[in-house]
């Protein structure tokens, strides 16, 4: 982007994800999975579906884990 007043796409998405952290009305695991996959540059439909499947199978009391191991 040539213009400094306009946010880059990367900043728009990053700031958006930061704003979601801690939202009480959102599933924390889902938010964490999206953020982690994006940080790894692996945010695709297939990878996210796989991550959500693992999240559903996980013990609800277990702490939210960091991402890793997707294609």
């Amino acid at each position, binding site marked *: 982007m040539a213009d400094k007043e306009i946010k880059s*796409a990367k900043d*728009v998405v990053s700031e958006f994800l930061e704003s*979601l952290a801690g939202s009480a009305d959102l599933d924390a695991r*889902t938010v964490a999975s999206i953020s982690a996959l*994006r940080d790894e540059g692996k945010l695709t439909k*297939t990878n*996210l579906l796989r991550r959500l499947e693992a999240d559903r199978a996980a013990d609800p009391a277990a702490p939210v884990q960091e991402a890793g191991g997707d294609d």
Partner: protein
Amino acid sequence: MTKLRHLNAAAFRGARFDLPLDFTKDHRSVAIYGENAAGKSTITDALEWFVNDKVEHLWRDDCKQEALRHAQCGDGDITQVKIAFQGQELSGTKSLSADLKTSVAYSNDACEQLVKNINEDNFYLRHAQITGFLAKTKGEKRKQIASIIGYDEIVQFRDVIQQTKNALQKEAAYTSAKARLDQLKSKSMELAGEQLTTKAGFYHKANALAGPMALKTAIADEKSYEDALKELRAKGSDPQKIKAAERLGQLEKSCNSFKDELEAVKSALAAFEAPNNELCKEKENVSKLRIGEFLAKGNQIIADGIYSDPNCPFCLSDYDLDQLQQEVGTRLAAMAALQQKFDSVKVLKDKLIEAITNAGRRAKSFGDDYADLDTFKKLITETGGGADTLRQLFKDINKSFEAFEPLPTSDTLNVKLDDLAALADSSAEQAQEEAGKLKLTEQEEAITKLIATLASLHELVGTYLRHDTTVKRYQAQFLTLEKIFDAFIKVQNEALQAVLDKISGDVGAFYAKLHPKENVDKVRLRMIGEEGVEFEYSFHGNPTQPPQKYLSESHLNSLGIVLFLANARIFNKKARFLVLDDIVTSFDTGHRRRLLRLLKEEFADWQIVLLTHESVWFDLIKRELRESGWLFKEVKADSDNGILLDESPATFRSLIEAKRGKLDVTNDLRKLLEATLKEICYALEVKVAFRFNDVNERRMADELTSQLRSTLKSKSPETAKHSVFSDLAGSTLIANLGSHDNPEPIVGEDIDVVLEDIDKLAALFICGKCNRPVRADANVPGEKKVSCSCGHCKIDWKD
């Protein structure tokens, strides 16, 4: 930012030989005129190919590298585009061989980086692009604008969230769990007269049902529930008899459920078989679906310019990246359709697997729970075998689906399932009969019935809660995705609107300059609806959209042009040059003049390459922009030489050098002589017969030579006697020039003789130092002579 210093295309599109375009050291703007089909767009195509590795309008119609080579190119001819940019040693050459292999050489890394950066800029506009953008839907406009301003990641993020949410809602595990909840609620109504969906609800109902039995135990949890059952059994004459009746009742129920589950397997198998076998016919293509993401990611990497070496990024074999990208794009489109088919078969497969799993568990449970019932040995044995059959079917289905091998015919399997169902049916009847033989008292029967009801409700609630957990986990995820999507749309729209506002400032101002006082103003781009982008404008004072509603073709054309100009001015990072290729076809003269003034005022420090096929418009450009330092060129097409940008002696000399020994150069020699004579005659004000317009340009060498000698005889008699005139008159070229279609080609040594004659003629009148001709109005003070610009070359000249 940079501008163009020099461009040369050879063996490229319309240019058979070198097509040089020098923008001078001042990087001047240039207007180029050429009749329709003269090949002027070769210049735009050359720039586009050099920078973007493809020519969009050709690639879109599946005309790729082959279409870049001049039609008359031989195997030895290399298609080349050379571009030099403003700045020290910033140049590159892109070549395309006869076997369509592309290679690029840059002067240095800085130039390579510069070209990569220019690739992200918008620097050319063709008429088709304008109409193409305006015809897009609002959603497509949003995507295109996002792409122009580098917001692709926003679009990708949005799409992943939306696609995942949609896919999640269709997953079989979710849909079947949800359907099962409804079934369990109905069953609960049937058994308990109310929908029991919680453990607390069950305990409450159990206490109510057990009320007439006046139990001491109040059911409040799992332990008290088990204690209550024991207390109930103890109320009969023989707790063992009650326990036996209870088990027979459970067995009867299990047999009936097993029968239904086997039917569900048969039904799901029938639904799956045909579509799966149909899908297996496309085995090769379906198996490649797995590499879809790999291809899409790879394609994106190439599109983003992250990988630009002329080979396959995976196997590193030589491959043109454009071609690779196009091929991958086509494959991805075909994959999308097949993926849809695959997904629907997968849903059927998941349902079948679930049905097999349910029936398999039940089959195994007979052996686990009722092995001690001697009278049901056949049921235990057969269901054990049935469990094996169902386990094998489970494996076969998964294997078939993963390997894309058709399932073997299910006839034998169906017979086995039918036999099992018949056995389950008869076993249910047998269990009922055996329970009857226990001869329970009325109270014992009431107790047994109550225990069976409680056990059924207990199991039902347990199953309900298990499925409810599945559904709730899914719902938590897609409700979260939905909220994220909705929130992100707002963020996306705000971010886009901020950019649109930025662009709109220029769009509105530029449009107002093109169309002042025309009842259309306040033109801006705006987010429309949920997430579309559209032009909004005020028409007779009323805000409205879309533009097609009231605007004429030329107004729509203007919108496209001003959007391009505004985008370029705001977002171009490196390209400070713009190519406008035939963009004003629907403009009248007044609006064309306004466009020129807009360029002159708002883009004075930009380099513009303006191409047109309209001579009137070209004349207008000359009048308006000559004083701004613009260059003016005319493209002429020739069936032998392709397109040429000028007809100067230097052009024909380089053509003759390029063609000599390979192709006939007779016409080029003639044109060289004519061009030389025209230059001399113009400078010496040689008078020739009046002719109209273009015909005036088409004067042959013999006429020009004759009139030049005639002028010289009166003004410079000694010069007129120079031997070059008699040499030229006797040369093959002049001697045979009765027509332009000289039937006798000039070859070999004769070419040298003609070139020497032309050189002698040029040496007489054109200065070797300043390369300018002697002019009739350049009198040498104190001498009866005229000279060239620098005064070095002189001839006698009478007043």
